[in-house]
């Protein structure tokens, strides 16, 4: 019989002999590695998932013309900036062209015209860039619709407009007033409540600023890369534009992610420590229980290293199988976390599986080192005499 066959025969029989102790070690590794692999699976997705979640706070990048070179942006420039982001990164982008319009007030008896800030934009991007806006009515998603207007809550109240009303407005570039149908009223809690919104193309015509923009807002998912650095790179690459992070949003994103990461590291350390302790104390008991067997093997000619290798192999087998089972359960756990917290699946990462497998073997070996080192101290002459 080949030596390794006898070796495996002894290892497998030894593991079968102490089912309850083996079960404790196995269970400790499965639970420890399960939780750690679940956390790591979530950890590697958390940047993307959290960033997606935080997109509900709205845009995190603002595009403006570089004040040294131009007063306005062009749609082309916006498209060039957008091309710097992948489809997965880009949640949405909304261009803005501002101007002043005279809007007929329905409240005063004489129906006088009042100046209102006019914004040309794309309505289909509002829920991506400003998801917190309260919208009453419907926003048209077609960029080509020319006769619909969306008004801010304050404008609606001050000038006496409601959904379905006809709103007359004029700019200094138009001959007389043009009529638009109010299709939605937005309540934003900021300056946008005092504005009226039309499709970008319509405002370009009304202000005679074809193809021009004042600003654009972008909502971008950062995949681990610092958004500020990426914006700086784009600014360097594309002249005439200035892409800035919206500090309030971008920095709170970073802070939340950093805190979650720190918490996860702490949890992983605590779990690793408790797994180590559990495996170590159980291995200590196993070595104590098998003291006579160790002494016998040494009396029969086994060297310390032979016996230590046998014990460490048992630990490696338990660690390896426990690690794989733990990873499997951890992956299922990660899916449950993903579903309940982010409402999406957590991606399979072979790197996490390999790391869990290696970590479980390392943990079980480290945990066994102290107990197994006691093999050296076992004196066959004393132990076999029962002293």
């Amino acid at each position, binding site marked *: *019989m*080949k*030596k390794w*066959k*006898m*070796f495996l*025969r*002894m290892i497998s*029989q*030894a593991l*079968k*002999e102490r089912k309850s102790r083996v079960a404790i070690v196995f269970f400790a590794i499965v639970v420890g590695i399960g939780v750690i692999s679940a956390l790591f699976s979530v950890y590697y997705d958390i940047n993307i998932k959290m960033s997606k979640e935080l997109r509900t706070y709205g845009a995190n990048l603002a595009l403006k013309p570089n004040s040294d070179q131009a007063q306005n942006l062009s749609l082309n420039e916006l498209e060039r900036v957008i091309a710097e982001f992948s489809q997965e990164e880009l949640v949405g982008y909304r261009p803005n062209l501002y101007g002043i319009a005279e809007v007929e007030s329905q409240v005063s008896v004489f129906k006088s015209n009042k100046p209102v800030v006019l914004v040309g934009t794309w309505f289909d991007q509002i829920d991506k860039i400003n998801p917190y806006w309260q919208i009453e009515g419907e926003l048209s998603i077609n960029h080509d619709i020319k006769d619909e207007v969306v008004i801010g809550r304050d404008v609606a109240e001050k000038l006496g407009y409601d959904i379905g009303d006809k709103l007359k407005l004029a700019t200094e570039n138009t001959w007389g007033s043009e009529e638009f149908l109010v299709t939605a009223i937005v309540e934003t809690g900021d300056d946008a409540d005092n504005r009226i919104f039309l499709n970008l193309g319509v405002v370009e015509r009304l202000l005679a600023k074809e193809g021009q923009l004042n600003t654009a807002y972008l909502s971008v998912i950062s995949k681990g890369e610092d958004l500020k650095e990426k914006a700086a790179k784009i600014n360097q690459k594309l002249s005439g534009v200035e892409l800035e992070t919206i500090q309030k949003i971008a920095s709170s994103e970073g802070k939340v992610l950093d805190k979650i990461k720190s918490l996860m590291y702490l949890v992983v350390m605590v779990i690793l420590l408790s797994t180590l302790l559990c495996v170590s104390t159980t291995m200590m008991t196993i070595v104590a229980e098998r003291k*006579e*067997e160790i002494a*016998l*093997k*040494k*009396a*029969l*000619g*086994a*060297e310390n290293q*032979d016996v230590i290798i046998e014990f460490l192999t048992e630990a490696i087998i338990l660690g390896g199988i426990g690690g794989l089972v733990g990873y499997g359960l951890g992956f299922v756990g990660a899916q449950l976390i993903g579903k309940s917290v982010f409402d999406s699946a957590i991606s399979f990462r072979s790197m996490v599986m390999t790391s869990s497998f290696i970590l479980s073997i390392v943990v079980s070996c480290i945990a066994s080192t102290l107990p197994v080192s006691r093999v050296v101290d076992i*004196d*066959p*002459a004393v132990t*076999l*005499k*029962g002293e």
Partner: protein
Amino acid sequence: MGLITLENVSKIYDGDVRALDDVSLEIKHGEWVSIMGPSGSGKSTMLNLIGCMDTPSKGVVKIDGIDISKLNKKELTKVRREKIGLVFQQFHLVPYLTAVENVMVAQYYHSMADEEEALKALERVGLGHRANHLPKELSGGEQQRVCIARALINYPKLILADEPTGNLDKENEQIVVDLFEELHRQGHSILMVTHDPKVGQLAQRQIILEHGKKLESNK
């Protein structure tokens, strides 16, 4: 040259406790020697020295020409593995291995496990039919016979038996004694520690120890 030579061997513990005190003896190839004496007389100490599980404080212990007095633990293990077959009073079998696997363990640490040869060794002690039984399924006598098969499997120069019949009933004692007699007839060298004068008398030579000193020998 004898198989085992002890020259003025002493083993001193804690500075002044003399477990063995200036003992000299020689055991020849093929000889069966029994060591007898009361508890604390130094029998176990002598057994440990000859079994390479300890080294003397003074004197020289030679096994098959090798002076083990200055060997380190690793070298002692090697000599024990190569030269000595051990039989214990409490049998000491690996509880989760079958009879044949217990015999193979000794082969494994010596060189190469050979199941066929291990089975033959069990047949030699009359236990071929019990080869696949665990120690707990065997009687005391059967367990001791497995130990003897294990001790023989690597063709040792010396069989070192520590009270091999001490834990056996009369019937099993006789079986084991018969086995030792047969082994001796086949030319094996045997050193047996025993309390039992009847078993001790079966040896060619008896060495009596008391307070660590060799009192008498019948030859």
